């Protein structure tokens, strides 16, 4: 089959690889009908997340049709079922899964020794991601083996196009979780850093959850225009002062809730000197992340407020203003998304026409063109916001 394969930094190729096979009774194989490129994939493209190996198949936003099931799938899935695959692989049985903490499932990381060593405790296995989370082959491919398939799936009905359902795999529940983590109250101002696909979903979620005011921050005009369409007041951090605008929009109080939808690769620019220093340290491996957004959020957040981090961080961040964080009494909530915790509700919202996540798609191309689309998405060329690939 064809698959997008990681060969090294900035080197992803569309290779011919052997087809996946059932390895365990709980496996299923799907024929992929749609998959997408995520901001997390860009961190891997840049080799900023340790633990990738040449030959790894990329992709964790995937849906398709079940073509084969193992003997242990127990009637929970059958040939012909249409499913969206959550990016977190879950067993459904361990203590964390029972609590709904799916992204920290204790069973599915097949390289758990690595996870235990690096993070202190293993987290769930993830598709198309580092070997710290199992190194499972990803879904930017024609076929995908879904391990623990009896639990790791979201069944979706026929009659709704792929484009509306695909993002149940990751970015829609990710934006939703980021907003839910804020315990939004009707008087709240929610400020969101980053208007990429995750930021866009976060904006819609905060609106649906009844925030009084949503403010979105980025520097890409087309992304800001999309944020505004979704109900956000926008700030362009390249041409305006984030601090001044936030102060003005909240009468000097600061936003009650701040969400990081940017992650470890914050924009580097001279007017934000800390980002230059971070980039320099990152190059010589003195720091793994560029946490400018974390610093800014802690500084502007209203005392007693909540900071919700959806953006991915991989290792060590320097100069986090713990003094401000502690003295202002802030709360931080984070995590890879517990996808299946939210998807029943979100699927219902899509079915009822409350939201249509396909608004974010700007490019749909054949899988073979995947490698070049990594560059287009990364460079924000051609007004790109979200890329969907069709095998």
């Amino acid at each position, binding site marked *: 089959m064809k698959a997008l394969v990681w*060969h090294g930094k900035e080197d992803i190729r569309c290779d011919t690889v*052997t087809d996946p096979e059932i390895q365990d009774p709980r496996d299923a194989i799907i024929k992929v009908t749609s998959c997408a490129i995520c901001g997390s994939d860009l961190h891997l493209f840049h080799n900023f997340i340790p633990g990738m190996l040449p*030959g790894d198949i990329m992709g964790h936003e995937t849906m398709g049709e079940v073509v084969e099931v193992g003997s242990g799938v127990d009637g929970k899935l059958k040939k012909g079922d249409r499913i969206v695959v959550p990016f977190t692989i879950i067993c459904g049985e361990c203590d964390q899964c029972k609590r709904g903490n799916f992204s920290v499932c204790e069973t599915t990381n097949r390289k758990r020794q690595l996870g235990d060593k690096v993070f202190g405790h293993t987290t769930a296995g993830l598709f198309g991601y580092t070997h710290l989370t199992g190194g499972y082959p990803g879904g930017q491919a024609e076929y995908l083996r879904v391990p623990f398939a009896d639990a790791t799936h979201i069944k979706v009905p026929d009659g709704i196009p792929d484009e509306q359902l695909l993002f149940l795999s990751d970015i829609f529940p990710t934006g939703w979780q980021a907003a839910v983590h804020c315990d939004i109250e009707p008087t709240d101002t929610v400020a969101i850093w980053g208007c990429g696909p995750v930021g866009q979903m976060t904006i819609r979620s905060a*609106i649906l959850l009844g925030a009084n005011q949503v403010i979105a921050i980025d520097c890409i005009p087309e992304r800001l225009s999309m944020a505004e369409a979704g109900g956000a007041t926008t700030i362009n951090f390249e041409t305006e002062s984030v601090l001044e605008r936030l102060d003005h929009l909240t009468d000097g109080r600061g936003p009650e809730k701040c969400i990081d939808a940017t992650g470890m690769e914050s924009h580097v620019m001279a007017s934000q000197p800390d980002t230059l220093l971070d980039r320099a340290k990152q190059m010589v491996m003195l720091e793994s992340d560029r946490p400018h957004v974390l610093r800014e959020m802690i500084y502007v957040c209203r005392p007693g407020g909540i900071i919700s981090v959806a953006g991915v961080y991989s290792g060590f961040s320097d100069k986090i203003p713990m003094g401000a964080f502690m003295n202002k009494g802030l709360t931080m909530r984070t995590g890879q998304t517990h996808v299946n915790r939210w998807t029943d509700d979100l699927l219902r919202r899509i079915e009822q026409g409350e939201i249509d*996540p396909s608004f974010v798609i700007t490019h749909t191309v054949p899988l073979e063109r995947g490698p070049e689309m990594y560059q287009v998405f990364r460079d924000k060329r051609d007004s790109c916001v979200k890329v969907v690939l069709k095998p």
Partner: protein
Amino acid sequence: MFHFGNIVRTKGDPKIVDSGTSLARPEDRLARALGWFSIGLGLAELFAPRRVTETLGMEGHETLVRAFGAREIISGIMSLSVDKNAGLWARVGGDGLDAAALISALTPDNPKKGNVALALLMIGGIAMLDYRAAQETKPKRPSPKARRRLYPDRSGFPKGLAAVKDRARQLTNGQARTGAPS
């Protein structure tokens, strides 16, 4: 064909049969080569500055050579990173400094002035490569003035933004009235 990735595959996972074309352009390969060259030269200058100064008749300038070595290593690391363009421009600047230092050593009384002239020639050649690589790896990000498609009609709410806001307000007011936690 041999694929390194296949050796490290977990048993049962798909293996590469045939590899597609790489995104790397010739200029990216040139940048890589220059990056490694820079690091190699930098290490030599940092750890064996005497060898360098003796060859060039510049005895006594070891500290300068060491500093240049550190500079080479830094620009080398940058040239190998995703910000290779910045690294390559740093190399172009560095070539200028190298040339200036060599020219200052090109005095009639330097017994090694032949070596110095040769080194200058080499620097010239490498500077040309550095400059070419820097020109060709310019980031392709759209300029602030580029024509853009904007998306003012992509709310994502089939019933419209106003309807969604109304509904959310009703729901949250309802919560406030019944005293349910928000």
